[in-house]
């Protein structure tokens, strides 16, 4: 397989869509940026499985960035219908939490801060910001995926290359 023909987009689209979906769902997003990093690592795994040649760390980086971009797109689309659900879940959670423990100062304002109305300009600004954030974390996830899956294939190939080609160079077996 030619190196130029490595398809970054399919694994990135698949893993990115999954990460965007999970990040948008309340409760699941408690794992912070780890979802997007895990998705980027998964997309690198898919890339390694698909590719017949060893991948480079820069390719893992690119796959991670693409995964992040897809995830941010899916996340922002899903957040529009999920906005009211978010508000309800958020309010209920903190109301019940405040009954059992002492809440930090200013937590009531937080609910108001979240429940701001929809603004198109801010929506696009938010999307731009989340694209940057998701692609940065995706890039790091891609590198983690490279450290987990990419290197094994690399070292395997390296070993294969260093095997003696000529029988006269090989050591006799025991």
């Amino acid at each position: 397989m030619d190196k130029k023909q490595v398809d970054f987009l399919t694994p990135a689209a698949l893993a990115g869509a999954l990460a965007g979906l999970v990040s948008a769902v309340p409760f699941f997003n408690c794992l912070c940026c780890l979802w997007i990093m895990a998705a980027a690592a998964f997309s690198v795994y898919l890339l390694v499985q698909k590719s017949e040649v060893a991948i480079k760390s820069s390719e893992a980086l690119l796959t991670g960035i693409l995964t992040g971009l897809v995830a941010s797109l899916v996340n922002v689309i899903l957040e529009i219908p999920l906005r009211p659900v978010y508000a309800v879940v958020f309010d209920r959670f903190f109301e019940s939490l405040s009954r059992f423990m002492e809440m930090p100062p200013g937590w009531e304002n937080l609910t108001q801060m979240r429940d701001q109305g929809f603004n198109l300009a801010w929506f696009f600004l938010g999307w731009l910001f989340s694209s940057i954030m998701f692609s940065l974390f995706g890039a790091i996830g891609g590198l983690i995926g490279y450290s987990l899956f990419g290197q094994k294939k690399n070292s395997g190939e390296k070993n294969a290359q260093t095997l003696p080609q000529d029988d006269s160079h090989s050591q006799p077996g025991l």
Partner: protein
Amino acid sequence: MKKKIIIWSWLLTVLISGLLLAGIFLPAFLAGKNRSLASFIFSLYSPLCHQRPERSYNLWGQQLSVCSRCLGIYAGFFFSAFLYPVYKRSWKIKIGQNFQWLIVLALPLAADFLAGWLKIWDSPLFFKTLTGFFWAAVWPFFWFKALEEFLSSARNVASAGKVE
């Protein structure tokens, strides 16, 4: 040319990560002055952080935009990227060649998270910040390496296109 690319990639990385880190403190600073802007900046961080008040620091009576662990991650990446030119010669060889560091330094964070999740122990906020900080502090070694590789291969493709 290669040196210029390296300097620009470093500057951009430091600038973006610095802005992201500053954005964490901005809502607390702006809360009394411009409430809607503060809420907008606060909401920007919501897709990538649970923003639970009990897991977050407070500044001037206002909650920061991300939890304590995420704050450690953003701060660790920024400070390590900022100081990268200082220690890259000595540490790059030791750390940058071995991608397993990305996994090894994630172990304290993973252990702390799992222990908290299984209710074995609830670590203090500062400890959560530290686990995030040390993990993210190693990222720039691989970030710049991959970025350098990516930019030089992109340049090679561009120059090959010109020759054709």
